[in-house]
C-alpha cells in the first residue's frame, strides 16, 4: 500500500505545482489560506479517522496490557499477556499455520498471476477474458468458501468425483490436518489470481514498447528480454502485489470461519481466527488485543522488509 502512496503522491504534487505553487505569479486573488473551509470539508472524515482509527489504535495497545472480559473495567497487568502468549502453544501453532498459508499463497498466486498477465499481454488482451478472470475476486470470501466447500466435498463433491474417476484416492480437503491449510490457500488463490494478474498486466502495459524494440535489435532472446527488461521494470508492481498478498493473507478469516472453524484439531486455526476466538468467544479482550498487536507488528515488519529489500519505491523506468 505504501508503494501506491509514494508513487501516487509524486506526480500529483508535480501536477499542482504550476497551478498554485508559491513561485508561480498569479493574478488577482492572493495566496490566502483556505484553512477554515478546509477544516469544514475534512470535518466528517476527521471524525471518522479519530473515532474509528486513531483512538481504537491507542485503545487497542492499552487493552493489550490489561485483563479485560468486557464486564467491569480493564485491569492493568503490564506485559503479562505478552508473556503468556510467548508460552502459548496455540499462538505458536497459529503463527505457524498462518505462515504456511501465506507462503503457499505468495508462491502460487504470484507465479500463476505473472503467467496469466504475460498471456494476457501477449495473446489475449480482451476485456471479456480479463472480466471472467476477475469474477471470483468480486465474490465475497464467504461465497467462495461455500462454493468450494461444496465442490470439494468428500462424498459427492465434483472434484473428488473426478479424482475418484481417475482412479486416485479421494481427498478430505477440509477434514484432514495436512490438507486443511493448503485447501484454504487454494481457495484464496482461486479468488485472487485474476485480480493479481490484472495488476501485473497493468504494469506490463506501462512498459514502453520501444525498450523491447531496442532489445530486439540487439538480438536479445525472449528469455533474456524477460529477465533483463520485463522483470526489473515490473519490480514496483511485483513489490506491490507481494505486499498486498502477504498482508492480505496474514488476515485470513472468512474462509476459515465458514468452513473448518480452525479444525481439524488446530490445523487451520489461523492467527485472526485465534484472535477472534480469544476475544469474542472466550471474551478475553486483553489477550485478544495483545495477539492483535503482535499481528499488527508482524504486518508492519513484513511491509517494511519488503520495501527495503525489494526497493519498491524505485522504478528503473525513470
Amino acid at each position, binding site marked *: 500500500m505504501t508503494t501506491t502512496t509514494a508513487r501516487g503522491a509524486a506526480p500529483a504534487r508535480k501536477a499542482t505545482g504550476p497551478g498554485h505553487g508559491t513561485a508561480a505569479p498569479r493574478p488577482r486573488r492572493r495566496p490566502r489560506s483556505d484553512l477554515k473551509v478546509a477544516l469544514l470539508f475534512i470535518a466528517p472524515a476527521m471524525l471518522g479517522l479519530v473515532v474509528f482509527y486513531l483512538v*481504537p489504535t491507542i485503545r487497542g495497545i492499552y487493552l493489550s496490557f490489561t485483563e479485560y472480559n468486557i464486564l467491569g473495567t480493564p485491569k492493568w497487568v503490564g506485559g503479562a499477556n505478552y508473556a503468556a502468549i510467548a508460552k502459548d502453544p496455540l499462538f505458536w501453532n497459529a503463527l505457524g499455520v498462518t505462515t504456511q498459508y501465506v507462503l503457499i499463497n505468495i508462491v502460487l498466486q504470484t507465479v500463476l498471476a505473472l503467467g496469466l498477465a504475460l498471456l494476457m499481454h501477449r495473446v489475449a488482451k480482451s476485456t471479456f477474458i480479463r472480466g471472467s478472470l476477475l469474477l471470483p475476486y468480486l*465474490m465475497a470470501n464467504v461465497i467462495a468458501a461455500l462454493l468450494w466447500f461444496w465442490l470439494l466435498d468428500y*462424498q459427492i463433491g465434483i472434484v473428488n468425483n473426478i479424482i475418484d474417476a481417475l482412479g486416485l484416492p479421494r481427498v478430505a480437503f477440509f477434514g484432514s490436518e495436512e490438507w486443511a491449510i493448503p485447501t484454504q490457500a487454494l481457495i484464496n488463490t482461486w479468488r485472487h489470481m485474476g485480480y493479481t494478474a490484472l495488476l501485473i498486466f497493468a504494469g506490463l502495459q506501462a512498459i514502453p514498447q520501444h525498450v523491447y524494440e531496442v532489445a530486439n535489435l540487439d538480438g536479445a532472446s525472449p528469455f533474456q528480454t524477460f529477465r533483463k527488461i520485463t522483470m526489473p521494470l515490473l519490480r514496483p508492481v511485483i513489490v506491490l502485489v507481494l505486499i498486498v498478498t502477504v498482508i492480505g493473507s496474514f488476515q485470513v478469516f472468512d474462509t476459515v470461519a465458514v468452513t473448518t472453524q480452525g479444525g481439524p484439531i488446530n490445523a487451520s486455526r489461523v492467527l485472526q481466527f485465534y484472535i477472534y476466538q480469544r476475544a469474542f468467544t472466550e471474551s478475553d479482550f486483553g489477550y485478544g488485543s495483545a495477539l*492483535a498487536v503482535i499481528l499488527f507488528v508482524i504486518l508492519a515488519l513484513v511491509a517494511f522488509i519488503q520495501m527495503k529489500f525489494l526497493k519498491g519505491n524505485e522504478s528503473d523506468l525513470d
Partner: protein
Amino acid sequence: MTTATSATRSSRFKSSGGSKRRRPFNWRRAGAWVLVILAVAVSVLPFYWVLRTSLSSNSALASNASNLLPADFNLGAYKRVFGLQTAQEAMAEGGSGAKIDFWIYLRNTVLFAGITTAGAVFFSAMAAYAFSRLRWRGRNAVFSLFLATMMVPPIFTALPNFLLIKNLGLLNTLLGMVLPYLFMTPFAIFFLRQFFLNMSREVEEAAMLDGARHLRIFFQIVLPNAAAPIATLALLTFIGQWNEYFWPLLVGNQENVRVLTVGLGVFKSQSPQGAPDWSGLMAATLVSALPVLLLFIAFGKKIVNSIGFSGIK
C-alpha cells in the same frame, strides 16, 4: 533519439511484413490460448456447478453426482431460499430443514452496503477536495495521517471499535454496523484526490471570480466533473461492503440485523453434518451473489479498468 526512432520504425515494418500475412499454425500460440481458456474455465465453471446444484434436488444429487445437467431439475431450493417452502417440504426433498430469512438479510445487506457507500464516498469526496483543491498549512501532514491508517489491519481496530459500539448501546443495530465506515475510507480519499488534482483550475477560478463559494464549487463543478471516478469508486465500495463479513458478524449477528454473508454462514452451520442442504445452500449462495453479478454484467468494463488504477497509479 532520432536513430532510435528510425530503427524502431524499420524493425516494426520488417516484423509486420514477414510473419503476419501468412501466419502458419503456431504451436506456442495455440498452447498459450489453451492456458488462457483453462484459466477462464477455472474462474467461471465453478459458478455453473453452483447453478446446476441449486436446480437439483438433494436426494438426486448423490446418485447423479457427475451429471453435467441438474439432477431431478426443480426450483425447490429457490423456493426454500425465498421462504416459499415449509421445512417439511424441504426435508421431503432431502434438505435439512434449516431456513434462511432471505428477505430480512437482503434488506439488511442493501441498507448496510448502501448507507456505508453513500456516506463514505460523499464524505471522502469532501476530504479529497480539501486535500487537492484547497491550500492550507499542514495539508500534506494530515493527508499522510489518513494514508497511514491504510496500514492498520481491520482486526486491530475491530476489537476496540466493537467495545465502543457496545458501550454506545449500538450492538445489533444497523447504526452500529454502519458507523465505522460511514465517514470515510482512506482508500476512497486517496482515490478521489488523484482525480481532483488533475482537474483544470480554470472553470473553478472563473466561478470564484463570479463570487461562487467553495460549497457551490464543490457541488456544482467538482462533483459533476468527477462523476465517472466517483461512480467507479461507489461501485467498488458497494461491492466490497456487500461482501463484508467480519464486522457485521461481530456487531450484527442477530436475526433482525444479520446481513447475507453472515446469514449464509449460519445457514451452512445449521445443516447437520449428515445431510447438508446442498441445493438450498447453493441457491442461497447464488442469490446472494446475484446483485454483484448483475453489477458486474452492467459495469464490467469499468470495474476491470479501475483495477489497473487502484493498484498502480
